[in-house]
């Protein structure tokens, strides 16, 4: 029984190491396969293509979440108006503000897409 428990424990340990270590192994393979050019090796870490892509992804995620929230506000304001909680004048004022804010977010998203499109691709 002790032998069986030891085998099972080792098997579990091996599985855990395989699962948890997979990203590290993958990263090492990528580094070996596409070894950095001398110019890239001198780049600060924050300016590597991966870091820039991560920053872009973060900005896009923030803007998309803000966009969803703004659309929801626009729909809620319309529902408030249609259910009589907002007068016509109040609704038009609030709606204009919200739409302007939404357009600003959409514009920033488009700028971000344009920036990514104009950036040189990775080697």
């Amino acid at each position, binding site marked *: *029984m*002790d032998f069986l*428990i030891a085998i*099972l*424990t080792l098997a*579990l*340990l091996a*599985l*855990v190491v395989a*699962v*948890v*270590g*997979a*990203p*590290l192994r*993958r*990263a090492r393979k990528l580094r070996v396969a596409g070894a950095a050019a001398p110019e890239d090796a001198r780049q600060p*870490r*924050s300016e590597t293509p*991966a*870091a820039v892509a*991560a920053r872009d*992804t*973060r900005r896009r*995620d*923030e803007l*998309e*979440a*803000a*966009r*969803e*929230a*703004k*659309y*929801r*506000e*626009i*729909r*809620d*304001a319309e*529902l*408030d108006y*249609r*259910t*009589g*909680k*907002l*007068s016509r004048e*109040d609704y038009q004022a*609030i*709606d*204009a503000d919200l*739409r*302007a804010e*939404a*357009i600003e977010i*959409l514009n920033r998203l488009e700028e971000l897409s344009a920036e990514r499109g104009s950036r040189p691709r990775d080697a």
Partner: protein
Amino acid sequence: MAGLGFACLLLALLVCAYGIGASLYGVRTGRVEFSESGRRSVYALAGILTCAFIVLEVAFLGNDFAFNTVADTSSRTTPAFYRAAAVWSSQEGSLLLWAWLMSLWSSLALFLTRKRMRDVAAYATAIMLGFGGFFVALMVFYANPFGTTHPAPAEGAGLDPLLRFPTMMIHPPMLYSGYTLCTIPLAFGMGALLARRVDADWIKAIRRFAFAAWLFLGMGILLGARWSYSELGWGGYWGWDAVENASLMPWLTGTAFLHSLMIQEKRGMLKVWNVSLVLATGTLAIMGTFLVRSGILNSIHAFGGQTLGVPFVCLIAVLIAGSIYLVVSRRDMLRSEHRLDSWLSREAAFMANNLVLVALCFVIFWGTYFPLISEALTGQEASVGPPWFDRYTVPLALILVLLSGIGPVITWRRATLANARRNFLVPIASALTALLILEIAGVTQKPLALVMFCCAAFVFGSIGQEFFRGARARRAMAGEAAPLALLALVRRNRRRYGGYIVHIGIAVLFVGVAASSSFQHASELGLSPGQSTRVGSYDVRYVKPTATITPKYDQEHTGSTLALGAVLDVTKGGRHVTTLYPSEGFYASEEASQGSVGSLIGGQPVSHVALDGGITRDIWAAIEPDVEAPALERIIKTGNSTLPPEDGIVAIAYLAREYLKHPPQAQFHFEVSPLVMWIWLGGFIVLTGALIAIWPAPSAVRARVFARSRARAVRGLARA
């Protein structure tokens, strides 16, 4: 197999330590592969603890009494369902359940956010693994669920009779799911502060988990209240017990968080409030676990003996200090983007709501921890009972219910007097109508209950108006029939209308609480067979005694050696209403000194309440039979002196027969309580509303909604 279980705990501890290091290294250096490895550590932790949990479950189901926890809390005669659930009836098993649930919810949270907020998620991963490591360390060093004894005893002690109730078996997993889910927003909140990203993305990521935590906690609390009412012999559903309060406090701050999150989302306001509430909720959940596990306060729930207090106090101190530091040091990024436009606005209503909820939490916190603080300062034990709690919580609860009716009908940013008049006319009319009806019905002797009923009517009026106007607007826009319009309205605005349904449920629940506590008729007296008493407008007659001996007749699987009870006939105005069968179970004790017969029934007796529930009233009865009557005592003494332990059950049979032939007077506790069912019904409505609010829209529908919203946004601006 205990060795495998303990090996899993050790492996889990290693994985937590590695994962914390990898996550922090990854986020600080920008090396994504380490953050990813840290996230996978959480998945691995969930897998390992699942293995550990299975080992313990198999031990319980297989009656492996070599395991100390199995021997202490199970037995061969315990039904399989209770054996499976007995895993978490011990302190060790409940710690394993806590850690396991936490690892599962953490895995789910990280899986759902795997492509977003990488920096926030990395910090959150380290924090969640910190919690996991803490609880695993408690098990490894203090309370090992895989401790064994050799040779193994032939039989276990059996499950605590108070826990032989289906609701009580589901209550801990629900409550622990609530507690552990509270740590997810806490971890992401701290992560967001550490990464300096308290934005819309963070809100979107944690809202569902905060909602799920709130839902599970709420359902766990209600299940516990139902158990207390249906199983314990005192006839109440809430006693302001320390452990009850410990679960209510994070629920209150969680409720405040869910509401004020909406304000941050819409107006960029209350950021300090929100991070403080999410950190407080998680900390209070840990404190609740501390109260249950450390046995530091006297409570029916707490486990005595084990001292886990010091590690928990250290963890709580770290959480509080860390939270305060993060909020103060990041206050520059937590400034509100907008100011309050008007005190007559939904923002103001939500802020008032927050204040009331936090005040309620503070009152309960003070009343719960006061005995500890008093003992620490003066050396003398002190206690705070229900009358103290009621004095401060009832007025706050009234304001809360009123605000739950105001919030849905008041507008964002500013509400003019004209539209306030338009929107509040129906709710106020509902409240006044309710007042008039109650006055006519003579329900005026309890002013606080009367105010609660009127506030609830206000809520029903306000929410009903919202549904009516929404459906009418939908019909005008889409030309749909009324039922379809209502359905489409709810489907397209799940969060809003799901939330409205939750408000209705809360109002219904509070009506039940107010009615049952203010207008209850109760009576405690001794009766012999044939005698009657009056409780409220009902007549209760003790028809005859009952006696059952296990195992043949123990239909309810109570595990009692002997159950003595009564048949009660309940009538009203001469018409038969119901028949009740209350009983009290007598259990075996481990005290050999009680004798061969005495030890079979010398354990803690447990009341098996009889309950006839209905939508308008509950009739509740409990019995305390007199087993110390001379004739019965004589049988026990004779059996003790003449029978060997294996034949003691023969004397029990004689005792039961004697009880049936010459029943002594028994003590009865009767209650007739109006509208108790509304409490459980209100809970069900809250559950329904919460599920509607939390349910995600199908992605295709979401895409269409976004496209339409985008087009409208562009068109609207072009027209402006």
